């Protein structure tokens, strides 16, 4: 298995850009814990234990002489030479990295040589730090998070139709019970602020909540969009699957596919979709294994509602 699961030749442009832009010096640990040639193996074992590390470079006056790894310590314990100086057992055939190299070199080295850490030298051949797979993973993760934020901030919002006075999109996660209710509660607060009749608010909130919970309980995640215009509240739900096998059956009260722990939370009573339809003036649902789409409309003025 690769130490760091990134192909440094064939990854996405963003990843390639990151691993060439980041330098070893941006990623390495600087506060280096080292020992001297004359320090005992026992002393180094203690250093590892105290600092939760598995390798200690042997450094004097910034010059690198060798490295003692946890394997060397295990050998020392096994063969009873804990009191020997490090000099006698350290690895001297060292692979090092230069602080100016791009991160891609480190990723390559971890795969090529199989060491757990590499000392890092500057142009004057002085030890300036050490790099581990943990350093690489954390810095890559942080850089990717930053990159994703930037990409997301560039996404254009949907154009808002002229007569819309609220448009909100919620991303709903599977089993995201803690967040559930956000969309419907916000919708209700919005309608409350605009002084719509209580019964109407409740209908809209019920439709939004049931559809939101359906995403949480049954889908692998999806999006709930709420549009409020002068005339109506429209709730659109799109998920990524797994789809409803029999829509007609799902619309019947009491039919449920929810498991026991979901039911123990008070959901999955087989009332969600029937409830949402009952409070809606218009209600459409279509489903395939690729996903389900639901549209619920509630008119703000009852006379606009189609006769049912």
């Amino acid at each position, binding site marked *: 298995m690769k130490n760091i699961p990134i192909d440094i030749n064939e990854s996405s442009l963003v990843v390639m850009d990151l691993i060439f832009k980041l330098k070893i010096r941006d990623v390495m640990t600087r506060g280096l814990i080292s020992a001297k040639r004359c320090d005992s193996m026992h002393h180094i074992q203690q250093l590892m234990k105290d600092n939760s590390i598995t390798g200690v470079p042997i450094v004097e006056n910034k010059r690198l002489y060798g490295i003692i790894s946890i394997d060397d310590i295990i050998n020392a314990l096994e063969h009873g030479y804990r009191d020997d100086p490090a000099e006698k057992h350290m690895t001297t055939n060292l692979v090092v990295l230069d602080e100016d190299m791009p991160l891609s070199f480190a990723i390559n080295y971890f795969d090529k040589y199989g060491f757990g850490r590499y000392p890092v030298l500057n142009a004057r051949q002085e030890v300036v730090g050490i790099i581990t797979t943990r350093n690489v993973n954390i810095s890559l993760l942080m850089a990717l998070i930053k990159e994703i934020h930037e990409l997301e901030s560039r996404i254009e919002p949907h154009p808002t139709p002229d007569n819309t006075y609220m448009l909100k999109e919620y991303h709903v996660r599977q089993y995201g*019970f*803690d967040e*559930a*209710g*956000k969309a*419907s*509660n916000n919708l*209700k607060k919005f309608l409350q602020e605009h002084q719509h009749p*209580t019964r109407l608010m*409740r209908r809209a*909130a*019920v439709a*939004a*909540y*049931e559809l939101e*919970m359906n995403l949480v309980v049954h889908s692998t995640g999806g999006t709930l969009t709420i549009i409020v215009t002068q005339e109506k509240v429209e709730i659109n739900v799109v998920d990524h699957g797994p789809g409803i096998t029999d829509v007609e059956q799902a619309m019947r009260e009491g039919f449920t596919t929810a498991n026991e722990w979901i039911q123990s*939370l*008070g*959901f999955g*009573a087989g*009332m*969600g979709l029937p*409830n949402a339809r*009952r409070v809606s003036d218009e209600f459409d649902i279509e489903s395939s294994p690729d996903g389900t789409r639901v549209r619920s409309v509630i008119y703000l003025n009852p006379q606009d509602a189609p006769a049912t």
Partner: protein
Amino acid sequence: MKLDELMKRMQAETIQPGPDIAIQTAYTSDLLSDVMAHAESNSLLITIQAHTNTIAVAFNADIRAVLICHNRPVPDDMKQAAAREHIGIYRTNDNQYVSSWKVYTLLQG
């Protein structure tokens, strides 16, 4: 009857004080969809569902207070959500049946 007085007479523990309003009726259910479909506005909900989703449902259905049965533990995020939405949380050792009977008797009396 005022919510506060009703809960005092029930000898229920106040977890999060509710609004100063009169309660006309209550609804007993542990199925949240059932609550949303059938509970009346400005009512009290009697349930064992002690989690934040109960508050989300109560808010949507205009329920003003929740009575948790069986002394079930109430998590902090539920209390915070209730405080934010001005919904009361009370707790009793009684089960849903006994609680419902007590509330019914007090509201009819």
